[in-house]
């Protein structure tokens, strides 16, 4: 399993559209990907749109992203860059 922490910079957080593009990005990824905001005790399967939206991630939240599966190495780099670019 590979993980990284990311502090959300977008002032509107991860609302409907960003949740949608994240789920879209992960379609086709074999690994299980979860996002967790430890401070709020919430986690979600990052491939499930409604679950991601329900996290209601806000600016300043520290999101722990965990990737586990056969393609975790390539997915890790890709997703980390995606978070930095989009959130």
């Amino acid at each position, binding site marked *: 399993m590979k993980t990284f922490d990311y502090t959300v910079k977008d002032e509107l957080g991860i*609302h*409907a*559209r960003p949740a*949608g*593009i994240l789920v879209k990005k992960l379609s086709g990824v074999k690994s299980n990907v979860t996002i967790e905001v430890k401070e709020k005790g919430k986690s979600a399967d990052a491939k499930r*749109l*409604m679950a991601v*939206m*329900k996290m209601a991630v806000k600016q300043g939240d520290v999101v722990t992203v965990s990737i586990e599966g056969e393609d975790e190495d390539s997915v890790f780099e890709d997703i980390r860059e995606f978070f930095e670019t989009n959130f």
Partner: protein
Amino acid sequence: MGFFNKIFKSGGEDLSYVLTAPVDGKSIPLSEVADPTFADEILGKGLAIIPSSNVISSPCDGTIDLMFDTGHAVNLISDSGIEILIHVGLETVSLKGKHFKRLKETGDKVKKGDPLIEFDREEIAKEGFDTVVPIVICNTDSYSSVKVETGDSVKTGDRILSVEK
């Protein structure tokens, strides 16, 4: 076969897989929504309504999975398992709750037709926002088809969409 069987089986359709219009207006295909997140079906299949009234009502019996604290969108799960996002206007997240009033909260059980959100579409439009209301099925992949009825004026409660397992 009894009388009631006949009624419920008419057309062989289970009404728990049918959604009704959450607002009065004109129904249009998602592809005509001026936001690629919706138009390209990134959030799922569905349709949109150009609203002519100011209350969003539940399209089905179900549970509010998430009422956005800004009141600009709501996620519902129907009792039959359909995951529905109703988004009021485009980019309206940036209004941060202004012109929106939440009438229900996350976790509430709702019946078809229950009012969920009140919004001031004239004021939202005045601030330069598109007030179109996309309605999308977030678990589109769970269904073999999502059929929509568009191109007409609709009243709250009119049938607009059905899904098939």
